[in-house]
């Protein structure tokens, strides 16, 4: 919590960051530049990588500034953020790899979509 001083300046600053990030996402989502849209890195287009990274940056600002993790003790911060980051990254990795594998099995199997 820190001092009982007002944090309004920081709050509006973070609001502007979040707004700018969202506007950038929306503009990219509408324009869909070909170079980013059609080229891939690890089965994901560059555009999607940008969206995901910007989203994580937004999540960082929401958690650190609005939810005030930046003012908590680092042990408390770690007890929340570490399980979240590791478990989610683990789950997402497994499921996405598996999803793509099943997709390939469907595509190359002897059973075809005939109707």
């Amino acid at each position, binding site marked *: *919590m820190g001092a*009982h001083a*007002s*944090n*309004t300046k920081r*709050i*509006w600053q973070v*609001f502007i960051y*979040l*707004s700018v990030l*969202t*506007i950038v*996402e*929306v503009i990219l*989502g*509408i324009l869909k530049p070909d170079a980013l*849209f*059609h080229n891939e890195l690890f*089965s994901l287009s560059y555009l*999607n990588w940008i*969206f*995901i990274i910007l*989203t994580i940056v*937004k*999540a960082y600002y*929401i*958690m650190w*500034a*609005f*939810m*005030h993790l930046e003012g*908590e*003790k680092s*042990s*408390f911060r770690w*007890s*929340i953020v570490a*399980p*979240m980051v590791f*478990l*989610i990254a683990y*789950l*997402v990795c497994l*499921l*996405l790899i*598996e*999803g*793509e594998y*099943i*997709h390939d099995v*469907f*595509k190359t199997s002897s059973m075809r*979509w*005939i*109707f």
Partner: protein
Amino acid sequence: MGATVTTAATKEKIWEGGEDIHPLGASYGKMMMWFFILSDSLTFAGFLAAYGFTRFKFMDSWPIADEVFNHFPFMHGTDAPMYYVALMTFILIFSSVTMVLAVDAGHQMKKKKVATYMLLTIVGGLVFVGSQAWEWKNFITGTYGAVETRGGEILQFVDKDGKRLALADFADTTMAREDAALTKNKGVWGMSGGSNTSVSLSQVKAGLEKNPDVLIRTQHTVPGNKHEKITLNREQTLQRANDFKFVVEGANLVRNEYGHKSFGDLFFFITGFHGFHVSVGVLLNIIIFFNVLLGTYEKRRTYEMVEKVGLYWHFVDLVWVFVFTFFYLV
């Protein structure tokens, strides 16, 4: 009862991390709110990971989000992808700002300011839930309509330039329907069947044969380009008409006109679960708002309760940021 309560009866001192150490440096209530948020975010991560899994699994037959979510209030018929959800995102971020301002005012024990900001947060939350209801309404009603094949594939219709056609644009409605709905007012009791779609399957088929410009667009994407669906030529279109099974308008939990069946289910489930969280958040905010007005926290000499509910409210915003990305952008 006495036998089950163990700690209250004993005089033993509970270890609190040592005198003046306070390992986590947070009050019990705040700590538990955070751990609830941790577990809840893992739940949402599970849902979104399931969405990613399903989408990777059906990578070449997944609907294109821009074509599904392209409505904006008072702008009928215009193609406005994203603007509406972007607006919803701003509403929620802004209500997060008013919430954090309420917490900030609470630290300075300014009752009136806390109450004002809480009220603004509640209004923001209600506007967001209302927006989501409108979004659901559009999703459920649908725009163009489609046909499902025997194999469960969704076929949409386009004209020669690739512009989407609604079923009503070409279906032959002069023909009698073959599927009159079985309803009580027609003297059919205890039976269900027929359909409540605006046009029947044979009307669609007849219309397709009559209009040489109508082509079928399949659920599958062009090889090598995940962002473009395969359009059949006229000959293939007529041949494909033999596989027609259902007329699909809008979306429900069984089928939807946008494409793969899982898409509708995941949309309803994930945005619904998030909407439920927002509703609960609004309810909690209202309770806290009245407590502020009654001076409960003034008496406690601390507005920490506003902070705890604020954490939940920011969490709802946090989840939306991810739902926005994975449903609408990616």
